């Protein structure tokens, strides 16, 4: 749960740039974050933890299957779609 996560991980985790950097890095983002990590090397393990969370590789949490199905049904209903589409 969020209360167990280091606040520094959450700070990075909600940063749009960081999300894009992890999931869709560009040269300019690399330069920006390289600079940041050079100035704050102590943040590298924090950022690594956030990265693993974003990639779903750290203690991944999943919705129970029945809840996944129920949510999809509600979404389809609200979108006016046939439930079994």
């Amino acid at each position, binding site marked *: 749960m969020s209360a167990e996560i280091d606040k520094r991980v959450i*700070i990075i985790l909600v940063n749009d740039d960081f999300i894009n950097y992890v999931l869709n890095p560009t040269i300019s983002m690399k330069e920006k974050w390289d600079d940041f*990590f050079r100035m*704050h090397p102590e943040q590298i393990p924090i950022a690594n933890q956030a990265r693993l969370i974003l990639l779903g590789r750290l203690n991944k949490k*999943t*919705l129970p299957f029945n809840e*996944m199905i129920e949510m999809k049904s509600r979404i389809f209903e609200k979108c006016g779609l046939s439930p079994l589409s």
Partner: protein
Amino acid sequence: MENNYLRKSPLSDSDTQTALLLSNFIEGDVSAFSKLYDMYVNLLYNYGYRLTTDIELLKDCIQDVFIKIYNKRTELNTVINFKSYLLISLKNKLCDESRKRVNLSDVAVDELDIVSSDNIEKDYIAYEKEKMDNTFINKMLDQLSPRQRKAIVLYYIEEKKYEDICAIMEMNYQSVRNLIHRGILKLRSCAV
């Protein structure tokens, strides 16, 4: 670490599949929408789970994100990375809802409100300052008895009402007031 980020391989099978599904979805293929949901609902759940303690709120927000992408599917052509788009949409939705509800974790509420793409360094400075402040507060609180400390934390930091503290600490109203009063006197004497 940065090398890990930039080890940009050719599109993975998953990326290729997403691009194809997204294209079909934009053209109106509902089964593609269904498959995108199956592929990414747990990406969102896993991410949102770290930001809020309110699972019902999280589920509502995930649902709203998928409804939004369905309703705005024709605009998805401009999306560069679908995963980023989903995660940022969920984060923003949680942020909006947090203004209406008060159930996000304290940390997430603070961060969702203040973090923007350019202020990461400022955030760390603020964090370090807050950490120092917290160290001072903790040192002060260490001067109290365990029960005084608990009552003071509940009242002043967690902002609980007296009635709630009575229930939590299994004490009557007057005893709680006395406990807090004595704790404050002790803190004042320590701070001088």
